[in-house]
């Protein structure tokens, strides 16, 4: 079995593709720095991440496919699914070696898998646009803890920067322990320090801005009032708004 070891970054993966073509050998398996070696290893190549090489591969993909395909591939990477790196590797080989039409050949299991996984990630992204709830803290910052299934924060920063351009906000991925802080036209990736303890779902009374409680109460009232009692349909509600998001929804607390 042929093994490539890389640093588990997207650039690293693209560098691995570059190396594979340069060496004319393709790995049967990709491993991270600390993964144990399988039993029968015929060859083990250490990939050294190189942004110039990664860039060349990425441009190559773009030239041979389209923006949409590149976007799908980024989404697949952000899914962080265990099998996604090898899926990407197989897919990229098909893009480079196959006909240009291969990216629309949905009868190919890898092509279909990439599309399906990318769709799922985009769906999760959309859930963030829908269900992020800001609470205004005493210092004026709008704070939203989230816990998405896939690593989609990088895909939503643009939307929120655009929409809430004149307010300071922080969207924090509680599970992955990082977030984006936005102020005056710039969003910065940050990690809250001293938070080995859990990030709160809700600010405490003391941490809140003056009007925050009132607005939360208003929103809850509105949420109750707008439901048509003759048409109560919890199944439909749960399908549209899966339970896993309720924890962070003001109206569901």
């Amino acid at each position: 079995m042929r093994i490539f070891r890389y640093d588990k970054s997207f650039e690293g993966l693209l560098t691995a593709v570059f190396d594979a073509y340069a060496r004319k050998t393709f790995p049967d398996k990709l491993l991270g720095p600390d993964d144990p070696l399988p039993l029968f290893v015929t060859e083990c190549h250490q990939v050294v991440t190189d942004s110039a090489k990664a860039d060349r591969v990425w441009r190559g993909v773009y030239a041979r496919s389209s923006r949409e395909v590149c976007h799908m591939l980024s989404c697949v990477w952000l899914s962080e699914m265990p099998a996604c790196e090898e899926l990407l590797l197989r897919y990229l080989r098909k893009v480079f070696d196959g006909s240009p039409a291969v990216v629309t050949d949905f009868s190919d299991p890898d092509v279909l898998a990439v599309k399906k996984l990318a769709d799922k990630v985009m769906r999760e992204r959309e859930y963030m646009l829908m269900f992020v709830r800001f609470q205004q803290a005493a210092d004026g910052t709008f704070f939203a803890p989230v816990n998405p299934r896939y690593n989609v924060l990088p895909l939503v920063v643009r939307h929120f920067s655009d929409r809430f351009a004149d307010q300071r906000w922080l969207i924090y991925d509680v599970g992955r322990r990082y977030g984006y802080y936005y102020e005056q036209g710039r969003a910065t990736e940050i990690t809250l320090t001293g938070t080995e303890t859990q990030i709160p779902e809700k600010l405490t009374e003391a941490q809140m801005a003056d009007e925050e409680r009132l607005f939360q109460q208003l929103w809850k009232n509105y949420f109750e009032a707008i439901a048509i009692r003759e048409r109560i349909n919890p199944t439909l509600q749960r399908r549209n708004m899966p339970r896993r998001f309720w924890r962070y929804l003001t109206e569901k607390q």
Partner: protein
Amino acid sequence: MKEQILDKLTILAESAKYDVSCASSGTSRKNRPGMVGSASGWGICHSFSADGRCISLLKVMLSNNCIYDCAYCINRRSNDVRRATFTVEELVELTMGFYRRNYIEGLFLSSGVVRNPDYTMERMVRVVEKLRTEHRFNGYIHLKGIPGASRELIERAGLYADRMSVNIEIPTEQNLKRLAPEKDYRSVYEPMSYIQQGLLQSAEDGRRFRHAPRFTPAGQSTQMIVGATDESDRDILQLSSALYGRPGMRRVYYSGYVPVNAYDPRLPALKQAPLVRENRLYQADWLMRFYGFRVDEIVDEASPQLDLEVDPKLAWALRHPEVFPVDINRAEYELILRVPGIGVKSATMIVAARRNGQLTAAALKKMGVVMKKAQYFITCRELTMPGVQELRPEYVRRLLISPAGRKGADANQLSLFFPE
């Protein structure tokens, strides 16, 4: 002020909730420097209420006081309900506070008729004017046009609103007058045509001057109440189809009549809103807008009512077995789209994928085709099922009616919303 505004919001949201048009779609607009907010092309739902409906906009009335007495309306003057009125400032604060917390896409504002149509419309215009100019609000605004409002006010409103709507409510004028004696079609169609003219005018100006102000960029919509009067689905859909023929008419909404005033003898005694019928109308509407169906293909003199047991697309296919089977590997996109079980998404994928070679049934399934339905209407490689022609439409119909559909008109839990 706090207790009071909580109370007002409850009252005025309760009063507004029977209005169905929740979607905030139609405008795509990036943030502009110095402004708050953006609008994304399709409306984002921010929550779903206990009835499962999308909450996208803050949907409230400015006031639920009303001088009219429409039989189908909870706010009619003869009803004994709690009344409230927002001040312009309250409503503006509320909208901004909700928007900044990502609760909503924007505001949907309607109102009962206070004093007279123009008095009411003027206050509504002041709310949106203040939002746009003082608070630099760049989110979505849907504004109800009050029947009977003057041209001047509608024109002012259209400069700030993304979409406006004037509701027809009842599909024939004669029935409208019976249930809402103070209204007639003129009071509805006039503001409608002011909006239409405003839109056309701004499109014209837009061609000539670069910075011409935009007028209701998301067009207008309207709503009909279904089941409060005796019009057939054909009456309703023909009216919709005619309305869609007008420039700028983007959506017609159908609202299954919720028996809010059961005591009124002019209204039918219903135990429940006709939800299945409402759903079928939306499906039919969808077919007209996205699937290239003409209204007379969906309902005609022979069958003026939509079939409650099967969706209108399947119903059409069963009435036209001669069109099938469709060859998935050869047929044109439009025809593939007519196959029950194939939606816009899978049809697009089929047309793209088949360039790489013949498609099999397994491949279709993976692309999201509902083979349970589609199998009777297609041929593709390796699929030799007997089709609708051999099996006869009546038989296929029986095979495909879901157990939920068999229960008939009042099934509450709808699963499939749009036909595929």
